[in-house]
């Protein structure tokens, strides 16, 4: 069964793939690690699995692209998925969300789904944050869940292709999985690469000889939008690390910036000067869950943090797009988080 959902998805969002086109060409196998690699482990929970969503629609350009994992073996992948379904979640609905631009995978999957009615294919517009659990649940399942809620308790499981294959290997084939693919990208690196690393390798071993010399850079795990900044580079890579982005720290002024937008674009520079809110409506136009972030900002600067919570703040999925787009460079996401934290304390 095929469902097209690009129109029915959600308002707002932003197409990052076009804004930051990152090219990955080569896959580098196996980086030695000085420590003994850790093993990937997964246990299906006791409670019933009601929905399984397979995420083949990465919306962040620095995320692991589909072709690396799937290659030309889409059909084999779906066969494995079927085997897992019959064994572990026979009653669950299985949906596959595919980036509608990746025509090869879409065609294969549709060809497969025509003959199999246990699977539903959704071809989606790859705009960020489509692959957020909240957005998936809303677009595919029609469910309204809140950010930060544990969706597994509702029986919803979202897997990416690599995790699914790893589960297949460990649970069904009983092999050991101790390495994974991650992407390395960003303006602080010499080139963008996809690397297979052993779990447990430290970030600094991985980045050795890869970062550009003589510049300041910051390291982010799982993307500069939602990911976290790494200050301790001896940290180990585990299964949750999908990608590492190293951005140049552009903390000096650059002359004639209008001529050098390429050079500045993928750095941590805020690309403008902080100003007062000009009520431009960019933030509520881009917000995927249709909030009005400027309201939180105005409550916040008036010192009425508690008031911000009146405006459906709990719906915010912390995607960061409002801060990303704001021409006045306001720290809207930080404000949202602060106001939310207030909620938890009281």
């Amino acid at each position, binding site marked *: 069964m095929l469902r097209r959902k690009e129109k029915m998805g959600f308002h707002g969002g932003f197409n990052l793939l076009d804004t*930051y086109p990152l090219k990955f060409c080569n896959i580098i196998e196996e980086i030695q690690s000085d420590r003994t690699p850790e093993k990937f482990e997964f246990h299906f929970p006791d409670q019933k699995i009601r929905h399984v969503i397979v995420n083949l629609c990465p919306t962040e350009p620095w995320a692991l692209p589909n072709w690396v994992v799937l290659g030309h073996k889409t059909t084999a992948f779906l066969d494995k998925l079927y085997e897992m379904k019959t064994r572990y979640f026979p009653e669950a609905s299985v949906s596959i969300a595919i980036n509608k631009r990746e025509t090869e995978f879409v065609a294969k999957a549709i060809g497969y789904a025509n003959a199999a009615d246990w699977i539903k294919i959704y071809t989606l517009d790859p705009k960020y944050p489509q692959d957020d659990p909240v957005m998936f649940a809303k677009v595919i399942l029609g469910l309204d869940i809140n950010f930060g809620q544990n969706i597994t308790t509702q029986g919803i499981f979202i897997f990416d292709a690599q995790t699914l294959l790893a589960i297949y290997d460990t649970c069904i084939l009983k092999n050991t999985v101790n390495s994974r693919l991650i992407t390395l990208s960003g303006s602080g690196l010499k080139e963008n690469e996809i690397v297979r690393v052993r779990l447990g390798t430290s970030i600094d071993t991985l980045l050795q000889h890869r970062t550009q010399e003589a510049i300041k850079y*910051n390291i*982010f795990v799982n993307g*500069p*939008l*939602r990911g976290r*900044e790494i200050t301790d580079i001896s940290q180990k890579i585990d299964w949750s690390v999908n990608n590492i982005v190293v*951005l140049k*720290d*552009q*903390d*000096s*002024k*650059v*002359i*004639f*910036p209008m001529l050098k*937008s390429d050079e*500045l*674009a*993928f*750095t*941590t*520079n*805020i*690309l*403008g*000067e*902080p*100003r*007062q*809110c*000009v*009520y*431009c*409506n*960019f933030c*509520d*136009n881009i917000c995927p869950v249709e909030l*009005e972030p*400027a*309201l939180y900002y105005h409550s916040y600067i008036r010192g009425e943090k508690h008031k911000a919570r*009146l*405006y*459906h703040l709990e719906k915010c999925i*912390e995607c*960061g*797009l409002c*801060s*990303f*787009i*704001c*021409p*006045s*460079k306001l*720290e809207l*996401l*930080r404000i949202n988080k602060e106001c939310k934290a207030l909620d938890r304390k009281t």
Partner: protein
Amino acid sequence: MKTLPQSIELMINKNLDRMESFIHTRPKVDFLFGSLFTAFDGLLRSSKDTAGTQPFIRNNYDVKRYMGAVLVALVFGWVLPSVYFYGWQTVLSRLAVSFIAGVFLADVIWAIIAREKHISEGGFVTCLFIPALLPPQAPLWLVGLGAALAILFRNIMGGVGNNLVNPALFSRLFLTICFPALLTAGYQAPVTGIPDLHSFRYGIDVITHATPLTAFKVNGELTPYLSLLLGTASGSLGETCRIALILAALWLIKIRVANWRIPVSYLGSVFIFSVFFSFLFGQTVAPPLFQLFSGGLILGAFFMATDPITTTYNQTAKWTFGIGCGLVTLLLRNFTTLPEGVMYAILLMNLLAIPIQFLAVKLRYHT
């Protein structure tokens, strides 16, 4: 090897750095020239701030580009057409006076006195509006006074982001109250056909006293629609060439700097209400299309009412705002002695925007 442009860049960069540290390390110099330097530096160089919290990358779009887009649209919307219609000396002298009085005097002096950290780029937009709102032959000092008042007024209200009403319109209102005679005279007739040397510089020497709306009010005369659209009818300096204004505004709407809801609701409500009024009162009120294309309505609806700071933030409330503007404009035009009501309508709705926004938020979130 460095190429020549690169070494020039390096040199400018180094000297600017030197100046910056010179200024910022001496409190007295900083007090006088700090904000001026920052403003100048901001035009040449990018900022050095980096994102300290998530998200760590930011879009390449700042207030400067936002205001810059409005400036570009205004240049194509009214400056270029009126250079043709009224001669380049008429237009450019007024622009120069407006910028000097507004940005370079009022804003800079204010920044020094009030110890502002930066000079806002919004001043350029306001000063580009001032001559557009005045008659083509308004005395230069009036233009300068208007610009200075607008900037001063905006700064007193707390600067860009805090002003309740559109500063350019407010200053126009002030001038209307103080110098009523000057604002009803000086409506020069625009050039039509191919300008000769003299009219290319100064426009033609005919001064009319009746703009299309006044003409209608006084003796029921309707100016042809085509001449209203192309700008060959008299009016304020920037409001006559409506076709250029519309095209420029459509571009602004396309790049999302202007919000489409306001012009649609404003113009739509003007049209619907005037159909309604014509139906009720017949010939005493102007016909709908004439209402749309006369006076400052096009300039007002596309450029002044859409000023984001003075409308409501809530998108649905913007409809109410626009409809309110349309209704007030028509009431003033048709049932008072005033020939034109756009300015009053927008100013009034600017003030009403606050309760409208308040109500809209209340309705939406049930607080």
